[in-house]
């Protein structure tokens, strides 16, 4: 039991202190209860995921359409359903190579990044790439490839419409 002076002695109530004494203990227990409930609620309802934005344009009809206006060369990256990635260059340099899928059908993003780095080294003015995927390719793979391409080439336009 709390007392006026906090000593725990009930007789203190009847002691020498004046009934108008300003010395009292604030009852914090209900406030603590409220905090516990609030913290539990916030922790349960909070999704600690940070949603970010990945920039992508449409190769045809987008805000900044890509096409022939990509400088000296045009880069196209093809995602196939079996996990292979095709890289095709056109314009002043023509050619292409295929990054085969890893065991289990996983995409070899490391090799893709390395190959794109080689292209960028030869053509530093390359600013945009077109990304084409087969219809059955999962959105996860498309996003993953956009992320890899953007490390080398800042602009990625979705194509295949």
């Amino acid at each position: 039991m709390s007392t006026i002076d906090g000593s725990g002695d009930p007789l203190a109530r009847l002691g020498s202190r004046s009934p108008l004494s300003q010395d009292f203990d604030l009852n914090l227990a209900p406030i603590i209860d409220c905090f516990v409930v609030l913290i539990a609620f916030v922790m349960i309802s909070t999704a600690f995921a940070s949603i970010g934005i990945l920039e992508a344009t449409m190769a045809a009809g987008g805000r900044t359409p890509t096409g022939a206006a990509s400088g000296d060369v045009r880069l196209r990256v093809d995602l196939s359903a079996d996990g292979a990635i095709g890289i095709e260059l056109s314009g002043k340099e023509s050619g292409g190579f295929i990054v085969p899928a890893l065991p289990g059908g996983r995409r070899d993003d490391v090799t893709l990044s390395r190959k794109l780095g080689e292209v960028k080294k030869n053509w530093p003015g390359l600013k945009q790439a077109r990304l084409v995927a087969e219809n059955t390719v999962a959105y996860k793979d498309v996003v993953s490839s956009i992320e890899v391409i953007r490390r080398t080439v800042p602009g990625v336009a979705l194509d295949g419409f």
Partner: protein
Amino acid sequence: MRKSFVKRPLLNTQMTLQITSMADIFMIILVFLLKTYGSGAIDVTPSPGLIIPRALTGSAPVEGLKLEIGEKTVRIDGEIAIAGIRDYKFKSDDLSANGASKALVSSLQRKKQEKSGSQVIVVADQRAPYSTIKAVLASAAVTGYTDFKLAVVNPN
């Protein structure tokens, strides 16, 4: 040993708990949680079961029309626009020659009258096929939404 006849005062078993410090800790935790509540670049509340792909981003916060692509529904700003899709795929008779979904185009046109702007935030499930993404993007482009942003979960 000599026994003392002086009566010892009884030990006071009643004590007051010092909970001021505990209240301080709770207050700090509460402020921290409230501060980190919804700290993402955009305010997105995905539907249950929707898995957003992960990718590193560094873009600034944006606002725009939210197009959510789930397994069975396509939502516009949280409201169901199309409920008749199966396994993330539109019905073949719903797709027009340019690849856009007729039902989604009409829903987007209605939305366009309410909310202007050309920015679309695509919140799609990571298992959705590229054909569905293309159909949604084509529908948005036909309606005048041409600035696309893909919502992803930042691993950091």
